[in-house]
């Protein structure tokens, strides 16, 4: 479903990687590996459509991602380094608005149970710890189970063991229902064994 063809990324005058190609079908897990600064986040953002590769193309179900624009982004959820939460709003408000902005408004109960499942307190995000913020960001995954593609940048960072296990469970369930997941990670995760790996150090 997701195809990457000969992707090359140039940032700040340096070529981070070249010749990255892969296909990802439903139910498959892909891990992007590589040392710091090798371009893992850049590759993920190229797959989102936020960054243009200096060479190569990304295709979704055969069509170029550039041409699909919103049609493509409506089918994915991207959780990056930054938690994408407004400091002055509560996690509930953040999640509610996020859902509406992607055209999939969620019910009060769904939002409430998602945040409860991740044990996120109902305070303005400003007052939450780093771990709580990451969990609040991950709550979006609970709202995005019907979206076929998940692009996650370091999803397990700043999570304690229980939360990390929960996140891995979410990913596993998503794969079972036919979704695809691409992720990057520094830490070893149990789910790594199921993943195919693209090692950017080799590109």
């Amino acid at each position, binding site marked *: 479903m997701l195809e990457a063809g000969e992707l090359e990324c140039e940032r700040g005058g340096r070529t981070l990687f070249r010749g990255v190609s892969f296909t990802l079908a439903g139910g498959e897990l892909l891990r992007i590996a590589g040392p710091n600064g090798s371009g893992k986040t850049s590759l993920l953002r190229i797959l*989102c*459509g*936020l*960054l*243009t590769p200096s060479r190569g193309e990304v295709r979704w179900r055969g069509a170029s991602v550039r041409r699909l*624009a*919103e049609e493509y*982004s*409506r089918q*994915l959820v*991207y959780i*990056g*380094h*930054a*938690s*994408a*939460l*407004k*400091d*002055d*709003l509560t996690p509930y*408000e953040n999640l509610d*608005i*996020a859902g*509406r*902005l*992607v*055209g*999939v*408004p969620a019910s009060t109960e769904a939002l409430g149970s998602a945040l409860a499942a991740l044990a996120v307190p109902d305070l303005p995000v400003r007052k939450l710890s780093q771990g709580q913020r990451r969990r609040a960001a991950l709550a979006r995954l609970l709202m995005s189970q019907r979206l076929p593609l998940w692009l996650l940048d370091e999803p397990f960072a700043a999570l304690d063991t229980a939360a990390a296990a929960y996140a891995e469970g979410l990913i596993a369930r998503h794969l079972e229902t036919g979704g695809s997941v691409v992720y990057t990670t520094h830490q070893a995760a149990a789910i790594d064994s199921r993943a195919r790996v693209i090692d950017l150090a080799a590109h």
Partner: protein
Amino acid sequence: MLDIARTLVWRDLLLALRRRSDIATALLFFIIVASLFPLGVGAEPNLLRAIAPGVIWVAALLSSMLSLGRLFAGDYADGTLEQLMLGAAPLGVVVAAKSFAHWVVSGLPLVLIAPVIALQYDVAAPLYGVLALSLLLGTPVLSIIGAIGAALTLGLRGGGVLLSLLVLPLYVPVLILGAGAVDMAAAGLSPAGQLELLAAMLIMAAAFAPWAVAAALRISAE
């Protein structure tokens, strides 16, 4: 798509409400700048009456320019901007919604308080309407065109001054037409021509500038 625009406007207004400093600073700056001129040029009533339209307009311009930095910076810093770029609505619509919310917070208060400033300058009563109308038409144009500068200078150091340098030449026609309309009325002539041109600028800016801003955002957010 309209739902998304409405959600975004509501979100930005809610954020501005929770951080009331944004509305206050734009307004206070406007008032302070307008109050500085009599201190600089002397309080001779005829002089003040003559320079009032220009001074009020320049103060509105400067205030609008200063508040532009806020338009995308917050969203850029916490990662929400990326999510907006991946949202279900075209980026141009997102930009239009944000610019509108920005204007409500930074431009509309100026329109409402301008008559008070005009009072300080002893502006003749019939001119208040033209002044308010010119600002009402002109300040949204400043927000929309300024958004281009804000998008281009996203995340750059020296952002504020650089933004002003980029945006001021583009502001000149609005300033000339806005202040000119009031001057025409003061001279006993009809300001209709200038006001109509301002309205035309507003329509053109609202129709085309959001796409330029969207392109600029994509360039800056890469």
